[in-house]
Structures are given as C-alpha cells and as structure tokens.
C-alpha cells in the first residue's frame, strides 16, 4: 500500500514534466494561497522565548506532494504552471475517490478488485482516512520538486560498495522469511512500533499517508518533538556536546542540540539498526545501507509566520559517496493532535497473520491435481 503511494506521487510529478498543456484555469494560482493580506499590519518577526531564542513551539505538519528524491526530468524549482497542474491532478484524483459508493455494489472479488493505492484493494483505507498533503513544498518562495537539494540532481547519492553490501545483506536477511511468516517480518508501522514512512526520523519526513503532525515544546535546556504517529517523543538536550558514545541504540537515535544564532542544530547518532533497515516509503529504503556511524544533522529555523524550515544532512562516508541534504517546510497548524494509540487497537496484525495461516491451510486442502506434486 505504501509503496504504491510513493509511485502515485512519482506519477503525479511525471504528469507535470511530460505534459505541455496549458495550465488548468480552475487551479488556484500558487500565489493566492500565501497568507491573507487583507489589512496592512506590522511585518512579522519571529516570536522569541524569554531567554531570547526563536520560539519553535506549537503544532506543525510536513504533509506535502513533494517527494524526497526528484522525478527524472524535473528541475529543483517548479514553475507556477507546473505546480498548478500537479496540484489539480491530486485534487481531481481525490475528488473522484470521494464520490459516494454505489449502494448496490456487490462484494469485491476474493483477493480484491485489483485497484491500487491506499484506498484501493480489499480492506484498504478509503480516501476518508487519507491526508497525504495536496500541495507542493515551498522553500524560500520556490516550489520544489524534491526535498534533496544536494547532490544537485536531487537523488540519494550512489552507495559505496560497503553501503551496497550492507543494503543487500539487510534485504537478504529479511527475504529468508516469507512476508507473512512472523510478526517480525512485517513493517515497523504495521507492528505499531514506529510511524509509517520516516515521520519520527530523523530525518523527519512526510509519510504520504496521514497524520504528518508534530508538537514541539521548547525549554531552556531541552527541545521535545512529539510525532503524532506513534506518539514518539524525541527528547533533545541542548547540552552542546556530541551524542554520547555507548552501546544504547534507541529508536530515533541519540540527539543533541545547540543554538547557532537563530537556528536550532540537532545532531543525531546511534539510530537503532532496525529503524535504518526498514525500507520506509518516504525514505525509499535510502538508509538500508547505512552503517553504525551514520550521523544526521538537522537545522530548524523560523522562515515566516506560518513556516518552519527544516533542513537535514545525512553523513555516513562508508555508505554514501557524498553527504546529502534536503529541505522540508513544516507548516503551522491550528488543530490539536490526537492520541495515536496504534498497538492498543492493532487488530490488523493478528488478522494479517491469521489470514496468511488461513491461506496456507486452504492451499494445503486443495485437491491434489492443483497442488504441486509432493516428492515421493
């Protein structure tokens, strides 16, 4: 389901790159969605905490159409026409999925009707649940085709032979089992251990699904970032020293922050290997080759009244042929976050595993003619 969503995003962007049709008049001009300017008011200045730091506190969302890596053929900065077309394709698709179901429809065929996407197939979420972001990410006034800005081609740099070997080893380790053999063979999100995608990070990226929401609380000596999915609190001491060495490798790693001027710089190391190994959608498996010395540096700064600019750099010389960096806008939310009590209501994992067992029993019970011949 999640892989299909990624493909959907790439397809949408390819529409932009290949089509030469005029901009759809129905689409709102990107300029129209900037902050309302009905009445003149004082220029915005970044709010500050009592100790003089920029105030990053509040609820934020990083949902967007823009993907980590750049679809082929696109420049980093999209034109207003490209953006309008792209967002209209998403809006039209969403409108179509929002159509009321036919009350006289029959049950879907066994094994699903073959439709794809998060709202497709049997048992999938329908469009009501999906809140993947319907806008192209805007950074410094530019509409972006990818988060990655370095390397300039917008792609995760090639892996070194060692990185490639680690990636293959992780995939091979997973593939010695069937997809549904054990709970540990299912993705972390399905097990309610971490979010879909790389929401909690680092790097903190949208999941192209739903609940891309964060709460930030900032004290004089800590910054706490809570990711709605799965209520994961990243606790970042502002001690200014490097992450301590040790054997602990927690989920989301060990982070240490410091203020450099008006930018919060967070350095993270020691991310739990299981998290790196997960081929999550928003990272496209980009960390699957990562080594134990992976470091993520994140930079948080207020861009304007509605936006926090989030920049990240991935550095792991034994894995990537160069460090790579990206930029993601986080938009201020007025809404509350809710309790994402995933595990407590996780009927899906039981059903997925028992469904697989049922399928195995059915296969075993089929007439001999349809079964592969057992060895004598």
């Amino acid at each position: 389901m999640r892989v299909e969503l990624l493909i959907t995003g790439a397809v949408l962007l390819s529409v932009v790159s290949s089509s030469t049709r005029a901009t759809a008049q129905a689409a709102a001009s990107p300029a129209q969605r900037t902050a309302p300017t009905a009445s003149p008011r004082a220029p915005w200045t970044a709010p500050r905490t009592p100790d003089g730091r920029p105030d990053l506190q509040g609820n934020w969302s990083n949902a967007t159409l823009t993907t980590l890596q750049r679809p082929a053929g696109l420049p980093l900065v999209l034109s207003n026409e490209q953006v309008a077309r792209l967002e209209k394709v998403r809006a039209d698709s969403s409108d179509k999925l929002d159509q009321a179901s036919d009350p006289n429809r029959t049950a879907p065929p066994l094994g699903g009707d073959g439709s794809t996407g998060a709202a497709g197939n049997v048992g999938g979420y329908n469009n009501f649940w999906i809140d993947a972001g319907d806008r192209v990410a805007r950074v410094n006034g530019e509409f972006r085709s990818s988060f990655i800005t370095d390397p300039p081609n917008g792609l995760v740099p090639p892996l070194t032979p060692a990185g490639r070997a680690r990636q293959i080893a992780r995939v091979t380790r997973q593939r010695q089992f069937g997809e549904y053999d054990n709970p540990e063979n299912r993705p972390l999100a399905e097990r309610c251990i971490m979010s879909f995608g790389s929401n909690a990070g680092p790097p903190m990226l949208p999941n192209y699904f739903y609940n891309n929401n964060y709460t930030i609380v900032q004290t004089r000596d800590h910054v706490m970032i809570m990711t709605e999915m799965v209520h994961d609190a990243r606790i970042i001491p502002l001690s200014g020293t490097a992450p301590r060495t040790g054997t602990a490798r927690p989920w989301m790693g060990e982070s240490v922050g410091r203020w450099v001027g008006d930018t919060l710089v967070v350095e993270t190391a020691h991310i739990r290997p299981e998290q790196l190994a997960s081929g999550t959608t928003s990272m496209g498996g980009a960390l699957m080759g990562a080594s134990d010395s992976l470091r993520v540096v994140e930079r948080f700064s207020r861009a304007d009244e509605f936006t926090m600019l989030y920049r990240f750099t991935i550095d792991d010389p034994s894995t990537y042929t160069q460090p790579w960096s990206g930029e993601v806008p986080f938009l201020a939310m007025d809404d509350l976050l809710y309790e994402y009590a995933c595990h407590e209501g996780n009927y899906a994992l039981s059903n997925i595993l028992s469904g697989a067992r049922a399928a195995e029993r059915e296969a075993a019970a089929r007439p001999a003619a349809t079964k592969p011949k057992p060895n004598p």
Partner: protein
Amino acid sequence: MHALLVVFALLAQDTVPYANGASWLCRPGRDDACAIDLTTTVISASGGLTRETWSADPNAPIDCFYVYPTVSRDSTTYSDLIAGDEERNVIRGQFARFASVCRPYAPLYRQVSLKGLSAMMAPGGSGVALDRGQGYDDVAAAWRYYLAHDNGGRGVVLIGHSQGAMILTELIRREIDGKPVQSRVVSAILLGTSIAEPKGGDVGGAFKSMPMCRRAGQVGCIITFGSYRSTVPPSATAIFGRVAGAGMEAACTNPAALSGGRAPLHSYLTGAGKSITGTTNERHRWVNTGPAIETPFVSVPGMLSAQCVSDARGSRLDLFVLADSTDPRADDISGDIGRGSPAQAQWGMHLIDVHVVMGDLIEAVRRQSAAYKSPGATPRGAVPRTSDGRPDMNGLWQSLGSANYDVEPHAARGALAWRPGPVVPVPAPQVLAFGAVGAVPSGNGIVVGGRIPYTAAGRAKQQENQAQWLARDPEIRCYLPGVPRATYMPFPFQIFQSERKFFIAYEYAGAVRDIYSKDPGPPQVDTWMGQSVGVWDGDTFVVTVSGLNADSWFDRSGNHHTETMKVVERYTMLGPDHIQYEATIDDPQTFTQPWTIRLPLYRHVNADARLGQFKCVEFVEELLYGQLRKNPIEP
C-alpha cells in the same frame, strides 16, 4: 603535528568540543596549566625571607570552575582556542592556587581579546557586552559538559574575574539561580565586575535567590568587588562599582572580612614581575637589601589591608598600602592600570584584584567547603521558578514504592497470579518460574483514607479482575497506562514546561500528554491518556483530565474505573527536588464517592539523567502473536 591537527579541529567547530581535553586549560589530575610551581617567599616587615611551599589536594571534596578575564593578545576580536602565555599566566596568578582546596576546572573559550575590547570601548565602538555571544556560549557549553560528565553531584565554586566574572554572572542568572543545580554551588567568586544588589539587602539584585556572602562559612553565596587604591578613589567615569536600576547598588564583599570592616590581606603577589597577561614588567624590588627573590610569588604580611566602601563614588574594595620607609621591605605594590593617568581612577587595581586577596579567598573557600559538607548547609527549600514566576517542574521525576502493584495498603504476597494448592493457593504456572522476582512487595498504599470507596459491584469486579490478572491487566500487553497510573509506574517521566507549554513524556510505553492551557472543549473521543487541561492555582498546577476510556487500570491488582471517570491532578513542588502529587478520582458508576491518591515524586538529581525508552510493543509480540507464526515456537 598532532597538536596542530587538534587546533585545526577546534577551529573548525562551531561549538568547542569540551569532551576533548585540549579544550581545557586545567582539569584535575593532569600535567597542565594548573600543575605549576607556586612557591612563595614570605617577606616580613623586617626584611626576613621565608620560603612557603604549596601543593594541590587531589582529593579535595569540591570542585572549582574558573573563567579567566580578558587576557588574549590575539589579533582578532575573539580569541582562538590556542592556549598562549597569557592564558597560562592568568591561571598562574588567579586560579592554580585554588587546587589546594578544590579540584580545578578551567575551560578555554573564545573570549573577546584585548584588541577586541579596546575596539569596543573606543569612541564609536560597539560598546562593551562581554557577557553574551561566542564567549558566553563557549563557557555555557563547558559548564554543561562539566555538569554532565565531571560534577557527579559534588559542590562547586565558580570563580571568574572581569570578562570571566561577567560571563559567569550571566551563566548563574540563566542556568543556576533558582534552579536545582543551585544547591551544588558552594559559592561564586566574581571579582573585577559590578554585581547589583538592592540597597540594604543581600539578595534580589543581579540574582533572584543567591545572596552576598556576609559571614565566614556561609555557602551558596557571592563574593564580589572591584578594588581601588584608598589614595586614588574611583572617578566619575570609573568602570566598576556602579550599577543601573533604581534602589540598586554594586555589591562589595571583603574576602578578608566577610561580615564587614577593615582587615589585613593575605596576598600572593607576583615575584617575577609578570602581570596577568604575561607581559613582563620591570622586576619589582621587594627588599632593599639581600638576595633577589627567585620564587614566582611573594607574600607581604601586614603591608596590605582592605575595606568595602560605598559612597557617591560607588562601591569598591579600598586597598590600603602600609608604607614604612624605615623598614627594608618595599613600600608599594604594582598592579594599577594607567598609573598617574585618569585611567587609574577608572580601573583601579583591576590587574591584581585576585592577587591581593588570594590567600583570603582560599581560606574562605576552605571554610565554605567544610560548611557545605555538613548537612543543612546546602540551600534547601527554594523552589526553582520559570521566568514568569511559576514553579519550574522541568526535569525527570519518578515515584517510589509499590503503588503500581496495589494502590491500596497491602502485605507482601508471593505472586501476582495464583491457583489452588493442597494447603494454600500457590503461584500460577505462568508466573511460577519467576520465584521471588515475581512476588509483590508490601506497601502502605497511596489512597487517602486507606481503601477505595467502591460500590459493591465495583469491589466484586476488582476481585474478579485480580483473579483474572494475567488475561486482563493492560500493562501485560504494553497498553498505554492511563491517568493516574502513568504517574506511579516504576519508570521515570519527564516534564517539559515552558511559559507556553506543559508536556509530559513517560518512559513506559512512550506515553505522552500535552497539557493544554486553553480548554478545547469536550474531548471528541475517549482515549487512553485522556484530554488534559491545566491551570495554576497559586503554586499548584491543577490538571483536569477527561475523555479517559474504560480500559486502563489503577494497578496490577485489578483496581478499575469506567469511561465516566474524571481525574483532577494537583502538582505542588515541596522543594527543588520533590513534587507532591495528588489526584482526585470521581466515577459514580464505580465508586460511592470521589477519592484521592497522594504520593511524592522524586527528581532524578544526577546531572546526566535522561529519559530512557520503554517501547514495549515489540516485547509482547510473542505473547500476543506467537501462536499466529507460520511455525509457532513449541511451548
């Protein structure tokens, strides 16, 4: 080569790596800037010379953290991180001697250099702000590193002069004054600067809760002054001794007579004619006759005395030099800035502020250290506060006791799950292997009044739950703990409190609560952790929790509630390291009347305390899903 590499590594950082020993001028137990010859020649008035040796106390019970004054002769506005003669020399004159009473810590930092200071003070310059920017950030980072890695709960004396004192003043203001770590500060010696205090008062000027030191052996206090010659009092443009603010004056404490008055000084003056910046002056002639003084320091008993004076010219330590031209000892000292020029009445004896009272400071710290060790000497009871005056509950907290086993009073019992035995019940097979590890410790209970006022049906259900504990306790399945159980789970939790937000992250199951300051209205859906709205009732934070589902329990003994439960929590700080926690529970469907639990919460006081992760979902997968594996593991 290696040294160069280290230097380049330091230059390339935007924060100084204080984990690297090269970033420190002094650390205990090293051969560094503090491990030097401090031998002194004591010169009596009659010209008699006595040698006084010195040694460090590597087992000193407290630490000293020193920030040096403007000494850098680098050509840039901010100094580099390479220790030059000037940095080593100021350690010699102002700090190394303290190692006889405390373990020395002195970070290098990118200070405003002498050149930078001149430019700032020049007409048209930017003005002087030495207590912020790069220098401050470096010292603050060093202090945090020291606290996290070196302090280990020991007492510490903060020592600074001039630029160093200004930075430490700001550090105390931002990170120590009114905070839990204040209890570890034995004293702060802030010389060659101007510290505000209310006229006629000892506390409430520059610092909210740290007073001036007014008696020997007083701890948690400030020693401060700027010194001037009694014969050249400060002029109208003097640098030290005056502060802004109505009703405020600059504080002055005389280390030789903390309770006031004039007293002889125990000075350690330089014997070799070196000033604190390392420039060599003409050798001072200490004795008219006899051999030259070869030791690095001299002491001149009876020659110097001092008294704090406060008048229209400002507050300062007046230095009196006893000149007796009939004895063979010298009749004056050096250390003035701009002697004979107007600068002398501006800066006074700034260069030797520390030297003239060094022996008195060490004696003061010795007595403070002794007092600090004795119970009751540590400042206690002060509740730290946020900038808006609320009790500051930031930090890691945890309950003690066995409430999570059973909130009601209970004797120890042999297991959490049972089955019938031939004589008495015995532990159930599922828990038998745990033996004593699986037993339940006794507890006095946390329910005010002893027992929960259940309805008859409510009590019956509790007993049924207890009998079915293995199948029913949500903790076994790693479900979110609910409120109030989250508070007394055997795990710490961390409060993040700013002027705008109050947020609690619990180690157990990664549970979180965002305590809203504005009521968003009735919760839209029931949840495990509920919807919390907090208001301050004086110094008590009162949190109303609604929208709790019926699935959480109070403990491992089956105590329960329904979704009509409302919880009102009260968090009250009893001191810097304790919170009194109360929660009143109202659920008419389960209880005959509202009831209250009360328990203290304890701060994790270790400097490197961090909330761990107990994301237990993966821990229960075999329990919950093991039978659904393709090949279930044989029991």
